[in-house]
């Protein structure tokens, strides 16, 4: 996992609520056995016209949203299926941050394991960000999001689980940490609870 420190970027704005993981990547692209190359299928049903050409009406196809590292979306982003293909496709497309007023549990967990930083903001900040693409600065160490809104500069301190932050900052994957727990796991398996099989 690529370490995450701080980034400056313009935003891509997707002002839709309840964007489910079937929209992020439709099920027909899940027959892969690798994690690479899924960026092409990101938002496929919204992004491409029936002839396979980019749909000019889809927000992310508009020039102002191109090559953004930060995606701003409406409430309840990433709901639905647990497919990790959703963050894989967002990261492969180039996003490093997703901002919304609410981010679905499994999607958030999957994102943190793939170097994609989910940031939950209050409604007022989301409304300012959803108005249109703007420049933002995100610093994970200090947990700050900064941008210029129509009414002046906004600075917001976002929350993130300390362990997830540590892993993101250092590009650590959590499997190594769990493997170090082996003695505790072995001890647990020796208790009455841990001894049975299926």
């Amino acid at each position: 996992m690529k370490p995450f420190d701080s980034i400056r970027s313009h935003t891509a704005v997707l002002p839709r609520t309840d964007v489910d993981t079937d929209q992020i990547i439709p099920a027909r692209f899940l027959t892969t056995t690798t994690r690479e190359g899924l960026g092409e299928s990101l938002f496929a049903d919204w992004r491409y016209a029936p002839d396979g050409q980019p749909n000019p009406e889809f927000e992310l196809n508009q020039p102002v949203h191109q090559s953004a590292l930060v995606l701003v979306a409406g409430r309840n982003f990433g709901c639905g299926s647990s497919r990790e293909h959703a963050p894989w496709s967002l990261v492969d497309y180039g996003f490093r941050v997703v901002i919304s007023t609410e981010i679905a549990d499994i999607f958030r967990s999957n994102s943190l394991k793939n170097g994609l930083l989910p940031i939950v903001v209050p409604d007022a900040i989301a409304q300012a960000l959803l108005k249109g693409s703007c420049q933002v600065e995100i610093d994970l160490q200090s947990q700050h999001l900064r941008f210029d809104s129509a009414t002046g500069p906004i600075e917001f301190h976002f929350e993130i689980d300390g362990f997830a932050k540590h892993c993101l900052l250092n590009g650590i994957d959590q499997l190594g940490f769990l493997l170090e727990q082996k003695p505790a796991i072995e001890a647990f398996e020796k208790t009455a609870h841990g001894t049975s099989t299926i």
Partner: protein
Amino acid sequence: MTMTATLFDKLWQQHVVTPQSDDQPAVLYIDLHLIHEVTSPQAFGVLRERGLPVRRPDRTLATMDHSTPTSPVRTLADINVVGEAAAGQIRQMISNCREFGIELHGFDRDTRGIVHVIGPELGATQPGKTIVCGDSHTSTHGAFGALAFGIGTTEVGHVLATQCLLQRKPRSMAINVEGALPAGVSAKDLILAIIGKIGVDGGTGHVLEYRGNAIRALDMAGRMTVCNMSIEAGARAGLIGPDETTLDYLRGRPMAPTGAALNAAAEKWLALNTDDGAAFDREVTIDASVLAPMITFGTNPGMVVPVDAALPTRPADGIWDRALDYMQFEAGKPIQGKPVDVVFVGSCTNARLEDLHDAASVLRGRRVADGVRMLVVPGSQKIKEQAEQVGLHDVFLSAGAEWRESGCSMCLGMNGDTVGSGQLAISTSNRNFEGRQGKGARTVLASPATAAASAIAGAIADPRAYLERAS
């Protein structure tokens, strides 16, 4: 002072290997890991890269359901109908299980089926367990009083390698369902009504516990339908406390304990129930006695109305307008009578024997309307066999429906069972997202009885009319 605890508190506490702190989530032990072909290949890849074995193959239950054909598979070559990539995924699953020593309930076994159907059917799903799977509908198993939730593929790798997950404890929420469900109103209608009430993000960050008379009165199939769709309210998991109904279901299942071991287990399981006076972070109460058969009209499961009602007129912020536009429905107008192209009875939500009985009881002696395709896909090969033993397949086939092999099928259309662009499908599955059942497909979610009634009418119909006539 006696400490009181909820079912969720007890399940959590019993599985903590290392407690959570400010710096670190809890290490939570997983009793049962369900795996399937779509969300496991990359996890096996990580194990292979790092030279790690599967820690507990004996606690791993593997099957294939998402990419699998619903046409008969007599030899492995028959899987090719699903296309090269999906067939490749199936072959990869077979070789991964062989390499890592995991028993696979594959095409050569009569135990294959949808992962959330066969876990309970085999008796592997039991009260008191932690159960995970790389699939959001793992919440189904909560119907037994097990803490069951969906995980991503990275976490599938964590469980394969360590039998543990790193987790922060979610909050708890009680859904109290009092009163009795009226005739013709099913568990599916109940959970759709609950999602309609609390919203598709109403359960985010929470584990739901369904409580009250109406829940106690449900059979295990109904309880599984309710818990299955907890994720559709955004919840981490859904739970129902174990009782005699749970024990009766488990008795005689191949992987369930028997005799004295069952009695000892039963005592522990029943003690898991939420203590009187235990506090939840949130509580919601629903009156079951006023519910009607429910149907979705929009593009998420929270956009739901009674089947005999008009569609709501509340263009709050354009979201509903967009959904109605996609669905080609009109605010303020009834949904009943809208012509349907496809009827799907299946999925981990509603493909158990009881669901097939519900659909058949409406369909018996009647015909699927001309021009309507009806697909009936049992939840497992066992259910298919049981249905055939009591002649349910004859009811479906003589009505003009297709009777298929088990699998996820048209719920998400990974195997080629799809709804055409612009077609309207009434589906007993769990998600009416845009294009979920095929690119451009329009989906309404409903119970098996409502789906069957709509198949006969060729349009969205109220099942109660047909049930009254049948009785």
